[in-house]
């Protein structure tokens, strides 16, 4: 059973419309997926490994192109996006991964500043913006530490700080707690919720159902590339019946 997000998301920042994705070998990663994410919404993408969670995120940040269907992210039409437009799209997205993807030979501060430098931010604003965002993630005291001097949770916070420093309207997190112990996982998750409370839409792929159950955030469940459950649709249907 596939649910299509038909709720009136007037301020949708992400819109998937009958999106399918097949890889070269013919394997289908996504099948007719439709949903919308509203401005400032927190959405979990859940499902087993290979269900299509990461594929959805990769489609959102333009690393993959859909085989069919339409994707709109922050006004960019992804099937038609040009190679020149992809960097512009990514500057408006924060992306966090399970393996942190930090530059090992640069300090926490340099890793965060790097995102500003590559987007040609004003040099005189880089230090203050970097400091602000590292304070926000609770790492002001460790800004000069190298990644290998930080715990897993701290490294993920640096990655989140790097994702946030460009003030993106959307934060994409692909299993951001997958490599963390329980305590660090809770800390990082709370940080993502705090960021969301500040108005940033968060799309978090996870297979950790304990995290999902403990909140009332919207959940989209995937199975073999299909959306099998969308809590927003369920709620809408219930409200419609009431």
């Amino acid at each position, binding site marked *: 059973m596939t649910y299509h997000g038909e709720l009136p998301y007037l301020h949708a920042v992400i819109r998937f419309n009958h999106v399918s994705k097949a890889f070269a070998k013919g394997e289908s990663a996504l099948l007719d997926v439709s949903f919308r994410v509203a401005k400032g919404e927190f959405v979990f993408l859940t499902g087993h490994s290979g269900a299509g969670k990461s594929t959805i995120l990769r489609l959102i*940040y333009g690393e993959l192109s859909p085989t069919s269907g339409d994707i709109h992210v922050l006004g960019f039409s992804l099937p038609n996006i040009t*190679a*020149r437009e992809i*960097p*512009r*799209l*990514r*500057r408006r997205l924060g*992306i966090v991964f399970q393996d942190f*993807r*930090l*530059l090992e*030979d640069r300090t926490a501060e340099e890793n965060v500043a*790097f*995102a500003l*430098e*590559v*987007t*040609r931010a004003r*040099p005189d604003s880089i230090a203050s913006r970097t400091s602000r965002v590292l304070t926000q993630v609770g790492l002001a005291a460790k800004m000069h530490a190298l990644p290998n001097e930080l715990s897993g949770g701290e490294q993920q916070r640096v990655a989140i700080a*790097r994702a946030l420093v*460009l003030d993106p309207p959307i934060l994409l997190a692909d299993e951001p707690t997958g490599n963390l112990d329980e305590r660090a996982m809770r800390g990082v998750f709370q940080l993502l919720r705090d960021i969301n409370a500040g108005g940033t839409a968060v799309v978090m792929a996870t297979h950790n159902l304990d995290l999902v159950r403990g909140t009332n955030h919207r959940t989209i469940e995937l199975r073999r590339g299909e959306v099998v459950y969308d809590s927003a649709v369920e709620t809408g249907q219930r409200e419609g019946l009431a």
Partner: protein
Amino acid sequence: MRLLFREALLAFRRAPLLSTLSITTIAFSLFAVGLFGLVAINMRQALRGLESRVEIVAFILHGTPLETITLAADDISKFPEVFAVGYVNEDSALAQAQVELEEFKDAYRDLEINPLPASLEIRLKEGHRDAATVAAVAERLQGFGFIDDVRFGREWIERLDRLRNVAGLVGLIIGLAFAAVAVIIIGTTIRMTVLQRAREIAIMRLVGATNGFIRGPFLLEGAIKGLLGGLLSIVFIYAGYILFGRNTPMLSGLIFFEPPQLLLGILFGVALGLGGSLVSVGRHLRNV
């Protein structure tokens, strides 16, 4: 711009071994090209030495007034191909023959009448010493009424022509082959650098860096490596030149590159570094 230089220079600090390997590879590749270049310019110099001996001798009929000869010599010197015209009178010709032809020394001494004619010796400008031009000038000289005969060693000049053409063609082919090998080796070395920094490139792309921005530091890094490799290759070539050129009596007349040629070599290194980087990064960016 500051960031561009910082990132390019950081690459040397982060991977000193790979950077050294790249520079040394570029240096040795250019060393091979340069060594061949050195052989080529010395061959060209040797050919030039032979060419400078190309001369047309126009024998003058006995009894021609000196005034006529002087006026004609003046006309001939104005031919566009002609570098210099010399007049050798009968007496000088005899004296010269006595010096140059040892075996006939005594025979010439006993002569009562000088059998040798006066002549005009015409040397041609560089670039006009090929068989066709020499023959054309010789034919024009035949047009002067007082010229009895014109000699210029047609066979020898034709052989020189062939030698020049073969040397030029072989030089071009070997030079291109060396340059192609250098390009491949340098391209592979720079590709290793790019692969070593694949993770960094992926992160740059994730945070929204444009391809142009990603390419910049790599191009600068490639250009710097090319520059250093080029300079190092000159040191190697000069060392080789000193070692063999000065210590081998047979090679004592060897010449070295002129400053503009050295500059061209360094620029070639820079171009190789730039080109290698451009291709390697471009290919990598297309594939990720």
